[in-house]
């Protein structure tokens, strides 16, 4: 997925918490069940006399199958986006691979020795209960730069790992 330098060791691969992906999929599932519910609410005689009245069922089934096909593809687009959107912590750097949709991919790297500060941000009920949050990594350089690991599972552990690796990169490598 990303090119590592010679001898570079991966310490952790961090993804957004599964709950956010599940929320996305939940929304798509809701969209899948909306048409049958709407049709069930429409009176039986709504199409009587209309030019398509004789074949409204077949037409409805056809359109519903196309709708499900669209949602099916959308589920896999969301999964691909979720799966390829990662943060890699190695013994030398933090790599932010941001997959924005299918046609936009951005890779940012921060060297461990340039890390100045790591803060975590846990906001909201679900984030607190399920234990996920943002990890903000500030680095020094020509200009102050920030990498944000969004909605990481167990942000405290990720923070500790990054700080430990940045303080003693040589020890971590061993």
């Amino acid at each position, binding site marked *: 997925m990303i090119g590592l330098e010679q001898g570079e060791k991966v310490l952790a691969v961090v993804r957004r918490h599964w709950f956010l992906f599940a929320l996305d999929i939940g929304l798509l599932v809701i969209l899948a069940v909306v048409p049958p519910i709407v049709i069930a609410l429409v009176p039986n005689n709504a199409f009587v006399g209309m*030019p398509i009245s004789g074949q409204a069922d077949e037409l409805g089934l056809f359109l519903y199958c196309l709708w499900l*096909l669209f949602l099916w593809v959308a589920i896999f687009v969301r999964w691909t986006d979720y799966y390829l959107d990662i943060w890699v912590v190695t013994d030398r750097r933090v790599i932010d691979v941001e997959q924005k949709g299918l046609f936009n991919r951005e890779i940012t790297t921060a060297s461990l020795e340039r890390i100045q500060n790591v803060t975590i941000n846990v906001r909201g009920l679900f984030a607190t209960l399920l234990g996920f949050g943002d990890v903000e990594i500030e680095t020094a350089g020509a200009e102050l730069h920030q990498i944000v690991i969004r909605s990481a599972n167990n942000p405290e552990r990720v923070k500790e790992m990054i700080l430990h690796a940045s303080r003693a990169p040589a020890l971590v490598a061993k």
Partner: protein
Amino acid sequence: METPVFAPQFGPSAKLLAFLFTPQAVHYLFLAALILFVIASTVLLYHWLRYNVGMFRTVVVVAVYFGGGFLLLAASYSAALLF
């Protein structure tokens, strides 16, 4: 191509609906959906293979994706034939 029968008591929207959903138009709609599915599948497959999702995971995802996709395409084509 069957000529849709327009009921005089319906407005322009009903006439448009009747025109759009002739059997031939439904088949064209299916063809358009099929083309879009092929394009979307090609893009997804490219990502799964290009960015090293892992062989086992790729095989499982491809099987589930195309299994479900072909099932839905077959169901919609069957409905289009019945229309």
